[in-house]
């Protein structure tokens, strides 16, 4: 499981997509989401956003 930045058209706040081990995105979140905060605290870094802006 990783987190990845996504670019939204609204672009008012950075949103992250959680990409599960099967490659699917079942959750999107802000930087305040507890699971994302815990993931960062383990030394992880979110991947950059794709050109296509939002997760498939």
């Amino acid at each position, binding site marked *: 499981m990783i987190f990845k930045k996504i670019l*939204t*058209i609204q672009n008012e706040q950075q*949103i992250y997509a959680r990409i599960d081990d099967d490659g699917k*995105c079942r959750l*999107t*979140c802000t930087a*305040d*989401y507890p699971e994302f905060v815990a993931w960062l605290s383990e030394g992880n870094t979110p991947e950059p956003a794709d050109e296509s802006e*939002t*997760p498939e």
Partner: protein
Amino acid sequence: MAIQTAIDSINNSSGSPFGFKNRIINGAMAIDQRNAGASVTQTTSVVYTVDRWSCYGSAASKFTVQRSTTAPAGFINSLLVTSSSAYTVGASEFFFVQQVIEGFNIADLGWGTANAQAVTLSFRVRSSLTGTFGGTISNGATDRVYPFTYTISAANAFETKTITIPGDTTGTWSTDTSGGIVVNFNMGAGASVSGTAGAWSGSTLRAPTGATSVVGTNGATFYVTGVQLEKGSVATAFDYRPYGTELVMCQRYYYRLSPAFDSRMLAFGGQAYAPSGAIVYVPFPVTMRTRPTSLEQSGTASDYHLFNAGTSTLTLTSVPVFAGSTTNSMGMVDCIVSTGLSAGNATALRTNSANGYLGFSAEL
């Protein structure tokens, strides 16, 4: 005379016989918005199971949790833990299911002050194992902990347990939207995170010393239901609230819109901001504990579509995305299609299959 005796009996309890007697939400384990009875596997992150209850373990995949229909008289559900292996718990490891009670809901107990009130925890429990089991009551920071024990005398039969906990006159106990009291049922803990039962401790303990390890026996089962935490030193009858009331109480922490009629879910309306995008607004049935920070969905874009002009629909080309302007009373969802919307026009999001859903979490 009999009526006066009954009133005296009520008044002699330091708890509240009316209203919000039970500080535990979903103590009967009936509400399961996320999983509808399906099993979830414990991980090394907090995983939510039946509403308001979560599980955790220092090593992944040592047990599963689900809502069960095995229940004692007076209940229709329980929370079932099933051990996935015969795991030897390391000295500093621990495994549990727990509920974190919001600080606002325990503020009257006066914990952390000289006026701290006693509470009584009661529950029905059943296991394939027998012996001394344990858990803890703690604050949100887990630096004030009261380990407790209880005995399961017979295998595979529900027993009622009652533990009275003296109010803690020290420590920091939240009285706001953060975690107030944590009620924890231990499934296994090592020696270095276990401590003396029946006494408050300033150490970060996870269990009483010597408690039975459920994860230590492959296939071991542990059921619990009728969990009640009430003010006072006497356990009273379980506060069986109306289902709708209990559901709304759960929705303060997690709200899932799931398909219903025609296997589809309608997630209210919105407005297109471009030919390829729209924001959809989802009012919450109750003000959530905090502003949600995430949106859950099925993971498949084609499970969702937007209404366009008239009755035509446009299938999403990417999954619905959490929109940052979500508040604690309304969710906002960003929806992307290839093209076909008219900026400024109204639209609505609907699931395109029974698999689609939207979930907003403000859990503790």
